C-alpha cells in the first residue's frame, strides 16, 4: 500500500526512522557543500511509468546510495521510499521541492518505507 499510494490521499503504513548527518564535501563545481551521498528520483511532477527502476507511484525514491557515504552509514538503502523528511511530507512533493528540503538542513530525520520490510 505504501508503494502504490495515490498522492494526496490518506495512508497508513509502517516506516523506518533514519537519522542522517551530512558531511562536508565538494560538489560538481568544487564548492564546499554538505553532502548526504544518495540520489533521489520521483515526485508528483514526474511520471513514474517512465522511471527505469520501475517505481509504481509518484513518491520520492532513493535511486542510488554511494558507498561510504553518510546515507549508507545511516542505513538508507536503494529503492527506499522517503515518506517524510524533517517533518516535511514527501508523498506529495515535486522533485525540486524534495531536493530543496533535503538540502536545507544539515541533519535529516527521515521516515522511510522499504519493500519487504515495512510492507510485504
Amino acid at each position, binding site marked *: 500500500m505504501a508503494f502504490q499510494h495515490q498522492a494526496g490521499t490518506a495512508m497508513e503504513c509502517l516506516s523506518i526512522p533514519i537519522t542522517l548527518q551530512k558531511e562536508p564535501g565538494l560538489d560538481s563545481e568544487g564548492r564546499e557543500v554538505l*553532502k*548526504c551521498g*544518495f*540520489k*533521489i*528520483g520521483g*515526485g508528483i511532477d*514526474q511520471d513514474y511509468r*517512465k*522511471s*527505469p527502476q520501475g517505481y509504481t507511484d509518484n513518491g520520492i525514491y532513493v*535511486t*542510488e546510495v554511494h558507498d561510504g557515504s553518510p546515507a549508507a552509514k545511516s542505513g538508507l538503502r536503494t529503492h527506499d521510499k522517503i515518506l517524510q523528511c524533517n517533518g516535511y511530507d514527501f508523498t506529495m512533493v515535486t*522533485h525540486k521541492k524534495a*531536493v530543496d528540503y*533535503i*538540502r536545507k538542513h544539515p541533519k535529516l530525520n527521515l521516515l522511510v518505507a522499504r519493500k519487504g520490510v515495512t510492507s510485504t
Partner: protein
Amino acid sequence: MVLNVEKLNESNTITEQFHFLMENNFIEQTSQHTTYYNSDDFILDPDSEADHDESIVSVRNNRNDDSMSPYQTAVTLEDGRGGQEVIEVQILPQDENWGENTTAVTGNTSEQSGSIEDVALWPGSESDSGIKFFCHRYITSIVTVLLSLIAFLSPLIMLILPKVGFFPSVVATLNDHQKAMLLSCRTECKGMLITLVFKMILLAIGSWAVFLRRPRSTMPRIFLFRSAILLLILICCVAYWLFYFVQVTEGARGTVAGEDELEYKILVSYVSSQVDTLLFIHYIGVILIEIRHLQPRYYIKVIRSPDGESRSYAIGQLSIQRAAVWILERYYTEFPVYNPYLEQLPVSKSKKSTTSFKFYDVDGFTNSDLQPSQSRTVLNGHSRRRDSSHNERFYEEHDYERRVKKRRARLITATEDAFTHVKRITHDPAGGVPMIPSEAAQAMFPSMARALQKYLRVTRQQPRHSVESILQYLTLCLTHDLSPRAFLEPFLVTAPVLQNEKEQKTIQNWSLICNDLLSRPMKNGITFQLRQNDVSLLCTVYDLPHFNISEEIIHPKSNRFFLKLSSETSV
C-alpha cells in the same frame, strides 16, 4: 433717524466706532476692499472751532447741507460740553438712487475671501498692435538683416572701389602706367574672381535657406547665440574693412616708392578670404542655432493646468526661452483642444447641493475663541461630503460617458444615412437635378443636423463649430469624395489645438514665468510655466540618463542542451 449714540460712545477708538457704523449699515463701502481707517488717519481735535461740519467718518464729505433728507446719516465729532464727548448726528441730503451705487459689485464679501476678479490685478500683457510691440518684434530682424547685407556686400564693394576711383588721394600719387598696372586683372586674378563669385552665390543660398525666415517667436531676453553670431559678423566686417584701407593706402605708397607691393590679384585674394570667413561664420551659425539642440539631452514633461493633459518630450540643449518656444510649437500641434465647458460635469437630476460653503472670518478679533470648534465642524462636514461625492463623481462620469457614446453612435448612423442620399453624377446619371457641392451640402445637411447638434451639445463643442463652418466643411468633403466618418472627424477627435479655428491667429501671446534667468541654458530640475488666459503649461526638466552599454559575450558552445528523461538528483 437717531443713532444710538451711547453704544457708539462705548467703543472708544475711532476704529471701533467705524466698525459699529459699518455693521449697522450707516456707512457705505465704495471701494472694492474695505479699508480700515486707523486712528492716525484722523485728527480728532477737541479744541478746534465749533464749526466743523466735516464729517470724518462719512465717505461723502462734500455735502454739508443742513437740510434734512431722511436717507443718509453722517457722524460728526465735535467738542463736547464740559469735556464730555458728544456725538451729534446729522442727516445729510443724498440723491434718491441710493441703492444703485452703494456697493461695488465684486466677488468679495469680505477682505479675507478670494475672488476671481483679482485676476485683473495681474500685470496685463501688451496688446498685439502698437508701435512698441512692432518695434520689439522686428528690431532684431531688422538689425540682423542690415548687418548681413553689409557683410554680404562688402566684398563686392571692396573690389569695385579701386576701379571706380574711390581713392583719389592715393591714386593721385601714381602715374597712369602704374594705375593701369594696379588695376589690371589677368588670368590668375580672373580665376580667383570666379571662385569668389561662386563662394558668394553659396553664401547667399546658405543664408537664404536657413536664416531668411519669418521669425516664429519674439523672446523676452536676448538670444545669446544669435547675438554672438551678429557680433562675430560685425567684428569680421570691421576688421576686414580696416585692414582693407590700410592695405590700399600702404600698397599705393609702396608702389609709388617702387616696391610694387599692391596688385589687384592680392586684393581679390583678400576679399576671397573674407568671403571664406563669412562662410565659416555662417557654418557656426547653423551649428549653434539649428544643429546643437537636435540631440536629445533632457526629458521635459508638460502639464496643462485646467484639465490635466500632459505630454512628454525629449529635448536638446536649449536656453529656457527657446525651450518655451519649442514646447509651444508642439503644444499647438499635439495637445488636444481645451474645452472650458467640460470643467463642470452635467449636474445629476437629483440636484443635490454640491456647493461647498466658504468659511469667512469677518471679525477676526472676536471670533478667535470660536474658531477651533467652528473649523472642526467645517472640516468634518467637508470630509463627510467628500465621502459621498466620490460615488457621485463616479456615477456622473459614467453616466456622461454613456450619453456621449449613445449620441455618437446615433450621429454616425445619421451621417452615414445622409451620405447615401448624395451620389456623384458619374455614378448615378439617372438622378434628379444636378447640384453644385454647396447646394448638395445644404440639401443633405438637415437630415443629420439634429444628431450632430445633439452630439455637439453633449460634448460642449457647439461654440467651436458654427453652422457656416460645418456647411463649408461638408462641401469640401463632398467635393473630395470623403466618407461620412471622414466628415465627422473634426467633431469626434478633438486633437491638435490648432484645429480650433479660434486659435488660428497670427500672433499668440504667452507669458513665461521662471525662477532662473530666461537666457540661461536648461538644467535638471528647472520648472517654468507658460500662461495664457486660463491655460497654463507647467514644464519640468529632467536629465536623460547616460547610457552605459557593455558588451556581453555568450559563448555559442553554451547553447547546448541535454534531455533528462529520468530526473534523478544527487543530494
